[in-house]
């Protein structure tokens, strides 16, 4: 178990370094002087020289990368080109909005999708199963940014039920929540269908296993057989899927943040790209990657915790 954790953490560190390298070279692959790129063509020579020195642009590329890496390890991701604030504190301000969105989005999808899949599997061929099946396909087929736009047009502009843009007044929880509803709905919708289908398939397979027949032969109540036995096994592949699915969810969240003008990390990266504010882009992508790696690691640990076979093979 301990070796496993060590291995996984080592692997995660490797991925992070690779991403850093990629981000770093991205800056250097763009033709032209990075300082001019960052400050714009009309920047004064002094400002450019100052920027170059500050960013170690006058040193050899390899040395620059070592600096970059060293800083990143110490939690220094550089400064916002415009405001000169530390990238970390800029991200710190915004990451809450993104986390809230992503977690709510996945959260409601899990809370709805898993039970739907279960119910559909318990009564295959029933009306619920069929309705779920049709809706699942529909929900998966529509890209989340379209759902975002429609939801925005319909629920806030047409019906005025929910606010359209922003993240709500700071400190006003109810307001913030009401701003969360539409984007979370938009990015989670596809996942409801996806999870329902996944859980249904996995449940159907498990329900045919001999140990389920055993549980029934011992006379356990149907509810216990489905929830305590079948789902307990069927949920395992779903957890892996959810973990990996966070990758896709992060990119949906970027669109949703742009469309709903939510001041999250996604919107930040988008704005930074158009402003050529590279330190912010780097920091934002790094944080997103780190988050993804963390989620996948957590999902693997969760599986190890839930599945004794995996646990003892570690």
């Amino acid at each position, binding site marked *: 178990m301990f070796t496993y954790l060590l291995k996984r953490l080592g692997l995660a560190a490797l991925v992070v370094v690779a991403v850093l390298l990629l981000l770093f070279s991205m800056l250097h692959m763009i033709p032209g002087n990075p300082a001019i790129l960052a400050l714009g063509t009309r920047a004064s020579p002094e400002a450019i020289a100052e920027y170059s020195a500050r960013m170690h642009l006058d040193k050899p590329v390899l040395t620059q990368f070592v600096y970059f890496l060293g800083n990143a390890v110490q939690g220094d991701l550089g400064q916002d080109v415009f405001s000169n604030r530390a990238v970390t504190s800029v991200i710190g301000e915004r990451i809450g909005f993104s986390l809230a969105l992503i977690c709510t989005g996945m959260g409601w999808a899990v809370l709805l999708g898993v039970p739907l899949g279960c119910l559909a599997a318990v009564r295959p061929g029933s009306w619920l199963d069929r309705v779920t099946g049709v809706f699942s396909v529909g929900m998966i087929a529509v890209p989340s940014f379209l759902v975002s736009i429609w939801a925005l047009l319909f629920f806030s502009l047409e019906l005025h039920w929910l606010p359209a843009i922003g993240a709500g007044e700071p400190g006003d929880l109810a307001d913030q929540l009401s701003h969360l509803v539409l984007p979370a709905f938009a990015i989670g919708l596809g996942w409801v269908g996806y999870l329902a289908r996944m859980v249904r398939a996995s449940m159907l397979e498990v329900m045919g296993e*001999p140990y389920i027949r*055993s549980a*029934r032969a011992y006379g356990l109540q149907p509810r*216990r057989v489905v929830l305590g*036995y079948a789902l307990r*096994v069927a949920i395992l592949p779903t957890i892996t899927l959810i973990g990996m699915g966070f990758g896709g969810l992060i990119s949906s969240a970027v669109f949703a943040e742009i469309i709903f003008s939510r001041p999250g990390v996604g919107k930040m990266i988008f704005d930074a790209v158009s402003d050529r504010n590279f330190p912010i882009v780097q920091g934002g992508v790094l944080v997103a990657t780190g988050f993804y790696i963390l989620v996948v690691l957590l999902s693997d640990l969760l599986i190890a915790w*839930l599945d*004794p*076979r995996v646990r*003892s093979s570690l």
Partner: protein
Amino acid sequence: MTKDILLNIEGLSLDFRTNRGRVKALRDISFPVQKGRILGIVGESGSGKSTVLWSILGLLAGNAEVTAGRVDYGARDLLTLDAQALRAIRGEEISVVFQDPMTSQIPVLPYARQMSDILYRRSMSEADKRKAAIDMLRRVGIPDPDSRIDAYPHQFSGGMRQRAGIAMSMLTGPNLLLADEPTTALDVTMEAQMIGLMRGLRDDFDTTIVVVSHNLGLIAEMCDDVVVMYAGEVVETGEVHEIFHNARHPYTRALLECDPARIAEVSRKLPVIPGDIPDLTRPLPGCIFADRCQKAMPDCAKVAPPMVARGGGMARCHLLEGPLADASWPPPADVVTVGRDLGGLAPVKARSDAPPLLEVHDLNVRFRTMGPLKARLNGVSDPFVDAVLDVSLDVKPGETLALVGESGSGKTTLGRTILNLQGASGGTVRFDGRDIAGMAEGQFKPLRRDMTMMFQDPVGSLSPRKSVRALITEPLVIHGAQGRDLDTEAERLADMVRLPRSFLSRYPHELSGGQARRVGVARALALNPRLIVADEPTAGLDVSVQGEILNLMADLQAEHGLSYLIITHNLPVVRHIADRIAIMYLGRIVEDGPAAKVFARPAHPYTRALVEGVPQPDPDRRRPPTAVIEGEVPSLLRRPKGCDFAARCPLAQDACHAAKPRHTHIAPDHRHACLFPLRTPSDLTETA
């Protein structure tokens, strides 16, 4: 004498709806289950044994439909109970032991939880439930149950898992225990222990048991009453001695005569029941056995046979009553009624002076158990196991050597290493005088024509999308046999294994178990090999199909002078087909010698345990429970320092734990690895 009837099945008929039509899987099944007795249901695969069992519990597949009949349990007909009433009976009054404890126990819950769940109807505290579960685990022989109850199924060995399965089913103290092939997934010594355990439980708890098996030895050893099923019908019922000594139905007779364990004199050719089980979508109007019966008369296929009672049992056959009755039937027990194909060439006697075709010397195969990093962190200095340890053996041209051992003894690894499918870590393998161990595949490839493997699972090892024609000529294609007409070759091979030529265009899923094995044999023969390594060639086959395959292999050997290395755990079969036997235990050969000698006078206590571990298909030769060897094959990870068998050996002494016994010859052709070998037959009786 009237006995209490616990369960009575009356006129049960059942169909499965399939896209081939309605499979009439059970037709007019009737038999009583007497209280406090053990009833065995025996019959070939597909005879409907399991279906009967599951219909008692109402746990049939969704496409099953009961068309007639009743299953009376006390005053109630189980077939008419609603779901809730059935659930109240399941697990509490009627419980089940399953065939394969690996797949029938949920892997993600510990036994403690699985067992307390079964007790959910009891108003007991969790602590009391746990205590009851621990007591039952102790009763079935799980060592250290107080802590082992928190284990998960995968942490138990196969034998322990089946014990735990029995504990789960006995936890509620059911009146009736149903067991579907409870020992099929287990080794010989485990099977013997399980039979003893279930008989003991019956005596202690006064439980009635219905056990389904195709293993006649188990039925004879364990049961009081027997029901013989064939193709969805009950053909004969009766008390166990009546069935085994005085069977009246031709099918029962045939089944008994085909069991190699019942054939006293050693014979290469085994009796078989010709033909296959009939198509159950359109069963015959008359006797269901008519197209395979040696005694069949023209009317048998048209007129349903009468049900003729005797004692508490009955048999359904025209020979017993009515216009077609035959007073000379049944003939005395020593008369063989089934076809015994003694044709073919006389078996070649392997020339003992010939140089061996295959010579294995001090072969070792080691496997790594964990990565180097993990081993270092866990302080394991030797992260390897010896799957094969210092094995020496040889096979002469035209000879059959049987490699016998329980699961985990390294038989298959040894076979694969000989065929260079697995690297050796020491020792030599010589084929025809050439050292072949660790040869590069390119260099070895020409030798693959001379030595081939027949795989254990025939259907699984055949590609499902290839026709039989493509499958049996595949080795020719791989080895670039240009200039040969593949169609002619395919027909030649099909003829050799006696597969009708029309089968060449079929696909694997359209073959029966026996036919799939024939395809496996044909593939092995395609390149005219000199040595065939056959891994469990008949595992999972019914006795009569097993006979067909073994007869075929014997004929081919006689015709072509083939050598066989047969890997198996089936000792009754080995006695008939092997010239020599090598017994493996934990990767080592503990005894080898001529088959007849090893059977008659085993020198190693483990050999004796195996020979005696096979239940005899004769209720008069039941073993006392004390004759059964205790314990299980230890894990390779915990190989003892001294004799590998020491922990289970009834003769073990201190010296046995000190060092591995060396191989000693008791005759030029008979070796063993035991410090205190059994010398004379009287030793056997003394310690038994």
